[in-house]
């Protein structure tokens, strides 16, 4: 038996008696690891004093140059998800998970060499390109498998996995700091050794996920589950081929929906610490602001499971409509709470906003499944991830540049975020309109059953 055959889709078909509740932990093994990406910033300061150790030496790397590592990784996350989505879908989850583990862990090991030799381009290539590709492959690898195992609760199933991506940073951040402390000495920062350990630990963890993942046999249904005789208006029972989906207005409307929802949250997430301190000077200390960021992370993670599960009950379109309407109201109210000095309500506004930011990520695979069927949903999801890449640039740029423009125009720091919040509310109006325009996919885009069977034989 060759190693390659173990990875084949046909080798991962579940035998009778296999519990579908084994699949979410398999997915979490991947997402908890790749969620580390959100915690990569803990390495920035230590990597800026690899030579000087206690403080940056002239030959040390600059923070601005180090910031590119994360940006390159996120770019390659989107690119690999879009480029390899069909490969992931057709090859099955195990092959994709193993490829993701090799790329993501390999990225750490290559970066360790870059740090040891003090060659930044090797770190760009390692964590940025190779690790970024692992992020993209890993992010989409379990999605369609979960959707097939949980046709009765697709939102909850993908919500569980994508919740792991939000929670990964909560593990990675303290673990990385602890490892760097353990490996550091008066003459050494300990980043390279930390990268090696993380690479090996993540490889082991992700390979466990790849080992236990299974796809359901063709035609499998959960016990007691009866598909609706008359499908809901916005839930198709047929499939759309991955590249055909690009020709539908529904794909691009959902792209706008995701992009606007992410843009409205991601900018705040990056600036939450500074924003809370500047809007409540003297009341929110740096330590308290750190606590605020931590709370936002918890709501970002919890919202992924909560909102995606809610979407199973109220429908995907209604869930996003709720996100946008509530988001518009909360963004409009936040400056008012800030001006009134009402810190608890200000915090509450952003906790709900960040829960919906996470919820937007977690609900979108089920939205795609409703629109385009389960057959190519992983690949279509991969293409949609480009909306995240765009939002990842748009959100922080909007928040940072508008704040700076306001301050340069003489607006006090405490009010410098008000215009940004109104603009975010405006972006959510755009998302709301796009969501309201979504209707069922036209019949001409659907695959006929014969051609669908030719493409993938199982699962």
């Amino acid at each position, binding site marked *: 038996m060759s190693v390659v055959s173990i990875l084949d889709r046909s*080798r991962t078909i579940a*035998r009778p008696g296999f519990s579908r*509740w084994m699949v979410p932990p398999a997915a*979490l093994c991947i997402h*908890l690891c790749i969620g580390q990406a959100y915690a990569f910033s803990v390495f920035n300061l230590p990597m800026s004093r690899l030579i000087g150790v206690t403080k940056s030496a002239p030959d040390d790397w600059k923070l601005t140059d180090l910031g590119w590592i994360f940006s390159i990784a996120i770019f390659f996350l989107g690119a690999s998800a879009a480029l390899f989505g069909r490969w992931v879908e057709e090859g099955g989850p195990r092959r994709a998970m193993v490829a993701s583990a090799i790329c993501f862990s390999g990225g750490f090991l290559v970066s360790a060499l870059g740090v040891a030799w003090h060659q930044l381009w090797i770190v760009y290539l390692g964590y940025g390109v190779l690790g970024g590709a692992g992020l993209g492959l890993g992010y989409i690898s379990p999605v369609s498998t979960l959707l097939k195992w949980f046709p009765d609760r697709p939102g909850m199933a993908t919500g569980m996995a994508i919740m792991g991506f939000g929670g990964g940073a909560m593990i990675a951040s303290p673990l990385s700091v602890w490892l760097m402390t353990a490996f550091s000495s008066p003459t050494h920062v300990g980043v390279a050794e930390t990268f090696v350990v993380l690479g090996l630990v993540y490889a082991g963890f992700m390979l466990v996920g790849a080992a236990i993942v299974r796809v359901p046999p063709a035609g499998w249904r959960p016990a007691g589950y009866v598909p609706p005789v008359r499908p809901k208006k916005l839930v198709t029972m047929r499939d759309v081929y991955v590249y055909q989906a690009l020709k539908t207005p529904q794909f691009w409307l959902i792209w706008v929906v995701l992009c606007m929802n992410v843009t409205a949250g991601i900018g705040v997430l990056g600036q939450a610490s500074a924003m809370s301190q500047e809007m409540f000077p003297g009341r929110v200390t740096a330590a308290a*602001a750190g606590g605020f960021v931590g709370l936002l992370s918890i709501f970002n993670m919890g919202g992924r499971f909560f909102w995606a599960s809610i979407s199973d009950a109220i429908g995907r379109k209604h869930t996003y409509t709720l996100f946008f309407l509530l988001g518009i109201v909360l963004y409009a109210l936040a400056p008012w709470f800030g001006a009134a000095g009402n810190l608890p309500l200000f915090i509450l506004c952003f906790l709900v906003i960040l829960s919906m930011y996470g919820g937007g990520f977690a609900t979108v695979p089920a939205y795609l499944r409703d629109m385009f069927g389960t057959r190519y949903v992983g690949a279509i999801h991969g293409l949609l991830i480009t909306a995240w890449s765009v939002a990842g640039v748009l959100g922080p740029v909007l928040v940072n540049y508008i704040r700076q423009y306001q301050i340069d125009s003489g607006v006090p720091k405490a009010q410098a975020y008000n215009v940004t919040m109104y603009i975010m509310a405006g972006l959510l109006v755009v998302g709301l309109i796009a969501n309201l325009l979504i209707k069922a996919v036209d019949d001409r885009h659907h695959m006929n059953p014969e051609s669908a069977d030719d493409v993938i034989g199982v699962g």
Partner: protein
Amino acid sequence: MGNESVRGTTALELALAWSFVGIPLLWGIYGTVANAMKLFQ
């Protein structure tokens, strides 16, 4: 599952799988919540 046993998934296997991912996640959440409490001090 190709040539593996045809027996069903046991409760122990389920518990192990969920613990494998649940324990690190709970550890991360605990640390984050502890840090978040600084906001209310």
